[in-house]
């Protein structure tokens, strides 16, 4: 890998520096099908210009091929968008917007482990593209809320019809949003946080 000299590496703008008191961070993951608005949501609420981190993965997910002669495994680079919100002088929230093919999301070591929870963005024109990821979150016990990103030509279903279609329990919040608007994306994150808080109160997370 060619590495540029340290002087040419761009860093955060001065106003984006975290205070030295920043002690810990938490993360929330935004998932959903292709083109459903994940990147837009990260960008609309982030306080820093959204960034991209990468990971190298193999199709089999067992490790990068040491033996480049082998054609049985293909290494793939997966890139992920993320943004940041400073919560207090001590606490920082990171938002990760998972890209591309979902079979890679759960191979990304540490992405879902430890995340406070997830937002599943759905587009009612293509609800079924979000089915698998919801199932995987359920299997791993990652709490989530469903946010319906309102595209103009998308069919509109009453929330309870969506709840039935998505086979979600009555406790799981389903909200409509327009992720291009910061206030709307913020509402989605607040809904998730309130939901997590209610789970903590009811002891469901223990």
């Amino acid at each position, binding site marked *: 890998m060619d*590495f540029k*000299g*340290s002087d040419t*590496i761009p*860093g*955060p703008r001065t106003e984006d520096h*975290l*205070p*030295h008191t920043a*002690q*810990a*961070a*938490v*993360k929330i993951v935004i998932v959903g099908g292709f083109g459903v608005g994940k990147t837009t949501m990260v960008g609309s609420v982030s306080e820093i210009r959204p*960034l991209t*981190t*990468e990971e*190298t*993965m193999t199709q089999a*997910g*067992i490790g*990068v091929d040491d033996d480049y002669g082998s054609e049985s495994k293909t290494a793939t*680079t997966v890139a992920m968008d*993320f943004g940041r919100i400073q*919560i*207090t002088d001590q606490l920082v*929230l*990171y938002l990760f917007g998972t890209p591309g093919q979902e079979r890679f999301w*759960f*191979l990304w*070591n*540490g992405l879902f*482990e*430890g*995340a*406070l929870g997830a937002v599943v963005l759905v587009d*009612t024109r293509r*609800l079924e593209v979000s*089915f698998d990821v*919801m199932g995987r979150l*359920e*299997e791993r*016990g990652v709490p989530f809320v469903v946010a319906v990103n309102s595209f103009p030509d998308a*069919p509109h*279903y009453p929330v309870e*019809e*969506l709840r039935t*279609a998505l*086979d*979600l*329990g009555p406790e799981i919040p389903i909200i409509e949003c327009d992720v291009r608007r*910061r206030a709307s994306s*913020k509402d989605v*994150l*607040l809904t998730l*946080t*309130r939901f997590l808080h209610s789970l*903590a*109160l009811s002891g469901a997370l*223990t």
Partner: protein
Amino acid sequence: MTPPRRKRRRPQHQSPPPAPAVKPAGGAEKPGNPERLYTIAGSTDGKRAELDLVTLIVARSAPPLSASPEVAAVLRLCTAPLSMAELSAYLQLPFSAMTVLITELIQAELVQARAPIVRQAAFDRSLLEAVMHGLQRL
């Protein structure tokens, strides 16, 4: 028009977490409980630091004269706390390559790692309240 229908799935407590995508150099990665607490990186001597995407890294000293351009860049970026994800983004290094580099720097006592707060058994309500208030101010 009726929407397509899904069937919900159950938590699978027995299933092991997915294998790490890349084995860190020289590190024996133990299959961790997904709900495990992260240890403060560097506090367990000899073992590979468990670095999360949102572990905050802070430089402990200026780059030594012998530092490689990569190391000098990390130490310069981390004069203020910066997450592993941000370091990986700015240095354009894959996340797993970044963990190898930072593990070396922790062992050399050039950087300090501040562990993230993760979802865990005894979930912290005051933490969630802080997040709510922080979001409301946005």
